[in-house]
């Protein structure tokens, strides 16, 4: 596992520098705009992109053909990618918190609670996205997986738009109140469960592959 994590870290080193730059830029935009939305959006996007980028690099290198001849199991290969997704989510949260603290200390217009209220749901969304994306990629490969995942992400948005046009969506304060109470608890439990289901499904798909 350590070797696999190191490999992805080295592979992504250039990308990490680029991501850091993006975060700083969007952090600045958030700071001057007085809204945490830009930064949160960027952090979510980056933590969604990192595991798929790592998988894509492995696919391009045909790494798995060689990797599976080494003392690693399919469980380790897949587990490492899910760990990466989780780590990105946690780092994204941590990074967002750090930036919001910086905003507060430098007298910015946005508060920590405001940032957290978008960051925490954002972290869950990024985990949820990876729950859907990773098994799709293991099944169909990165290119097709990306297209399918866009459809999967756009579909709920489309449904929400249609519901809104039909005035069938509940009011935002109602939704927020639900999220703060029961809904939040459901999401807190559901997302980790979905994450585990996604992991075992990915493992099953990976084991069935031939190289």
């Amino acid at each position, binding site marked *: 596992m350590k070797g*696999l994590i190191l490999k992805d870290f080295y592979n992504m080193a250039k990308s990490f520098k680029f991501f850091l730059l993006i975060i700083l830029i969007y952090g600045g935009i958030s700071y001057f705009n007085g809204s945490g939305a830009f930064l949160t959006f960027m952090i979510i996007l980056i933590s969604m992109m990192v595991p798929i980028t790592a998988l894509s690099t492995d696919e391009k290198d045909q790494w798995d053909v060689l990797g599976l001849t080494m003392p690693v199991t399919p469980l380790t290969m897949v587990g490492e990618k899910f760990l990466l997704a989780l780590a990105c989510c946690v780092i994204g949260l941590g990074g967002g918190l750090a930036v919001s603290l910086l905003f507060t200390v430098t007298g910015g217009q946005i508060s920590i609670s405001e940032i957290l209220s978008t960051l925490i749901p954002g972290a869950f969304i990024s985990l949820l996205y990876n729950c859907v994306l990773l098994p799709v990629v293991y099944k169909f490969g990165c290119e097709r997986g990306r297209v399918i995942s866009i459809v999967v992400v756009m579909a709920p948005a489309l449904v929400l738009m249609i519901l809104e046009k039909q005035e069938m969506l509940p009011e935002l304060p109602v939704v927020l109140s639900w999220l703060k109470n029961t809904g939040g608890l459901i999401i807190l439990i559901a997302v980790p469960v979905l994450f585990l289901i996604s992991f075992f499904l990915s493992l099953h798909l990976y084991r069935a592959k031939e190289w």
Partner: protein
Amino acid sequence: MKAAVSCKNVTKRYAGFSLENLNLEIPAGTIVGFVGENGAGKTTTIKAILNLVQPDQGSITVLGEDSQRLSRSTKEKIGVVFDGCHLPKELKTGQVEKILSAMYSKWDAACFQRLAGKFRLDKEKRVKELSRGMQMKLAIAAALSHQPELLLLDEATSGLDPIVRDEILDIFLEFLQEEENTIFLSSHIISDIEKVADYVAFIHKGKLVFMEEKDLLKETYGLISCRKEEADQIPEDLVAGSRTSAFNTTLLIRGREEASKIFHREVPAASMEDIMLYLSKGDAR
């Protein structure tokens, strides 16, 4: 003799190709050259041994274990080099060493350093910046640097210049100095096989045609040109393949001594290339 790898009735079917009833034993402590034309099934065989593809029938044991349930400790003893470098292309050579040392418990840093020095591998160069030959050298250095007992090499020398191939073959011979070490080298470069192999296994269209000691092949197979009338007199069981032109017939003989008596002249030994050509493309019998 103990077998490092044993394939029993291994069959793997694809659309348009199948590996049929492969029975192959790789004796421990030897170099087995695995030859065959492109698409004969060499890579499929190696991938089946490594459990990268699952056979439809049959069983394979590797270093005494079922290939589909290889333990971590057995995988530690297997070194693999494929045609084409599958190491991460963006990584520097030094970084490749670091990840492999984290993956193998018996990583031999001194061995890797020695081979890297011998191959003149630059630690700061990324894998993608290396030439094909240098990438293969890196892959070979990596495969040799964790104290393997079994090396599986799938066309590891193809596309390399003769000087580099010679260097690499010498390293393989050095590796074989440990009695328990075994090499299974698939190649369509016959001269490499002729140089280092103890045994030669020839695969054609998914079927194993023979597996013989290399020196015995030279004693057994011969190539002779003769008139058509002479060729017709040779018993069928002595003729492994033939090619007929307007003027004469060339026969690949399986049983040089016997054929020499019939021809009343010595039947020259066939080269391995001739054996492959006649068994693949000639009118094989």
